[in-house]
């Protein structure tokens, strides 16, 4: 799943660095992801993983790292 998340970040995250060089727990905002880019990442994640983030998860922190995104999607897939 992390590879799919990385592919989405590469396409939509507008990162200032190569996503391949980022650790799973690296701060994506520090890596250059803007708030607007994070919205596109959120929408792409919903399309790819067939989930819908509820309002309580539409927060900056939920998308701050690959690990955080993975945890959020795992939670939605289990729910």
């Amino acid at each position, binding site marked *: 799943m992390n590879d799919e998340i990385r592919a989405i970040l590469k396409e939509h995250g507008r990162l200032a660095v190569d996503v391949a060089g980022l650790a799973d727990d690296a701060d994506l905002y520090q890596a250059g992801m803007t*708030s*607007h880019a*994070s*919205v*596109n990442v*959120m*929408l792409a994640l919903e399309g790819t993983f067939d989930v819908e*983030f509820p*309002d309580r998860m*539409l*927060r*900056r*922190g939920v*998308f701050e790292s690959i690990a955080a995104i993975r945890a959020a999607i795992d939670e939605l897939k289990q729910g």
Partner: protein
Amino acid sequence: MATTYSATDLYDGLVKHGLIIPVGVPGIFGRNAVFEDVLARFDDYVSRVAKDDGAEKMLFPPTLDRKVFERSEFLDSFPQLAGSIFSFAGNERQHAELRTRVHGGQPWADLQVMTDVVLTPAACYPVYPSFTGTLPENGRLVDMQNWVFRHEPSPEPTRMQAFRVREFVRVGKPEVVVDWRNMWLERGLTIMRSLGLPAKSEVAADPFFGRGGKMLASAQLEQQLKFEVTIPVISEEKPTAVCSFNWHQEKFSKIFDIKTPDGETANTACLGFGMERVCMALFRHHGYDPKTWPAPVREKLWP
């Protein structure tokens, strides 16, 4: 004045006393001489408070270069509020078609084309392109009063489609910009309270569009990028923002390539007084006739 707040009562009171003049569309109205005098006096009061700040005065028309608008990311955040200007660029045959449709009550939008301008969506936007390049050591400070358009028709008098904002924009190093924002937050509260208005300040978020907008709003709140000075005008529970303070961090400086003398990307912040809203707060709290307002309030506005 009554202690209960009501949007309808305020609108009706403003109209009954001739202060605003309905024109048929919600959120658009004229202002009479009394209303304009209060607005001008408040504007002067702000000028007196800011007189030693050394701001550069500028004035822009209520229109903005469409390319600046597109680069500003306004459509990424608030597509529902934008006002893009279209006009007719056809030939005589198409003009005949236009006239037939307009007078026949038929849709005619497809006979118009997009122009190079939009209505100014935020009072600070016109100035940023002029900052491109390297700033002087202490950055820059600009003072404007601009008309703003927001597509949000509402019968509620403080929610206007077109209104004026007395706007200050600071650009420079991050600490300079944040200190300046904090100083004005205190000043804004002091100014409002000196006018007998029960003002408070709070962290705020913009009305971003859609579900993605919830993320943008949460990021804005979390980072404390927006503050407002609010006063109860039509509601006690939801007081009206009369002054808004926005710290954009590097957003506009990245878009418009604005650098500090040491080569770093600059920070920007702006603050704006909603001029009509301040006037409405004064009318709501002190009555519709300024001649009857409390002496200390009159002394501040008519010194």
